[in-house]
């Protein structure tokens, strides 16, 4: 039968999109943190630092954005037809976010 592995061009495209979506997720998380700071919520500064709780949320939001993006581009059913289950492309799309957040927390 046909391939079960995700096609290589798809992998490359997902990793690239993952970077862009991580930037969007990070910006939205930072915006929320800025609002929290203005509102005087304690711990906002600490939370926005790499490795903080907002790093976790940046990765989670990136995963959600990857899923939405796959649906928007009609790619989920295409991948399903290739035997690829939904978590697979979402995890691939999360890889850049996870890597960058880990690197940033190490460099902190």
């Amino acid at each position, binding site marked *: *039968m*046909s*391939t*079960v592995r995700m*096609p290589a*061009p*798809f992998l490359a*495209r997902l990793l690239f999109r993952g970077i862009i979506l991580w930037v969007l997720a990070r910006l939205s998380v930072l915006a929320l943190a800025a609002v929290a700071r203005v509102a005087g919520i304690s711990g906002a500064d600490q939370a926005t630092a790499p490795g903080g709780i907002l790093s976790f949320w940046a990765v989670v939001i990136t995963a959600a954005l990857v899923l939405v993006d796959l649906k928007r*581009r*009609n*790619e989920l*059913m*295409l*991948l*399903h*037809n*290739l*035997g*690829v*289950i*939904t978590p697979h492309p979402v995890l691939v799309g999360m890889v850049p976010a996870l890597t960058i957040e880990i690197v940033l927390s190490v460099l902190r």
Partner: protein
Amino acid sequence: MREVLVADCVGKKYDDKWVLHSASLRATSGEVRALLGRNGAGKSTLFRIAAGLLAPDAGNVRFNGVVRERARFPLLAREGLCFVPDHDLLSTSFSLRQQFQFVRPGAGEIERVADRLSIAPFLDARSHELSSGERRRAEIAFAMLRRPVCLLADEPLRNVAPMDAEILLGAFTEIADAGCAVVITGHEVPAILAAVNHVTWCTAGTTYEMGPPFMARTDERFVRDYLGSRGG
């Protein structure tokens, strides 16, 4: 001929209301079958259950001889099931040729299938650049290149010109002739009845095996409740 896919005595309820009860769908290798029914009769629900996209509340799905209480589409796809939904199947990010290459076709196979489905001039275009008829032909080309053991196509003739419908129905016959079990749905009754080997009628949440198209056309209830006075 063998039964590749059997959705047996399937039931589905939403908010305690059964929308399907004791409905069955069979796909047999080498045959093109039609699942016909009025809007809201439950045929799309039955189709999605058979494809493993929806969990049934009763009954089961048997694919390649193995009974699955909860069939999941990507896992069935690995075993040769192909599902063409009623909306876009192909990605808007890749050209048709790139997407066809995902199924690792043999040398020259893409060009052969593209010629067969009259999409050769669009191989380097993306799906959103095509008309609905061209897009539908491209989706069936993808299905053809996959060489599935069972193909389920939900309303493949919707919004396509008669010429496109003729090409698509010819492609389904060709896919079935290669040993695949094909099931299609739709409301383009004259064209569908002229092309399929067997009709299953879905009405009021259950199904009836009508047999070959000529048998369906002579069934009084089918004619009265589905085809209408003009006979489809």
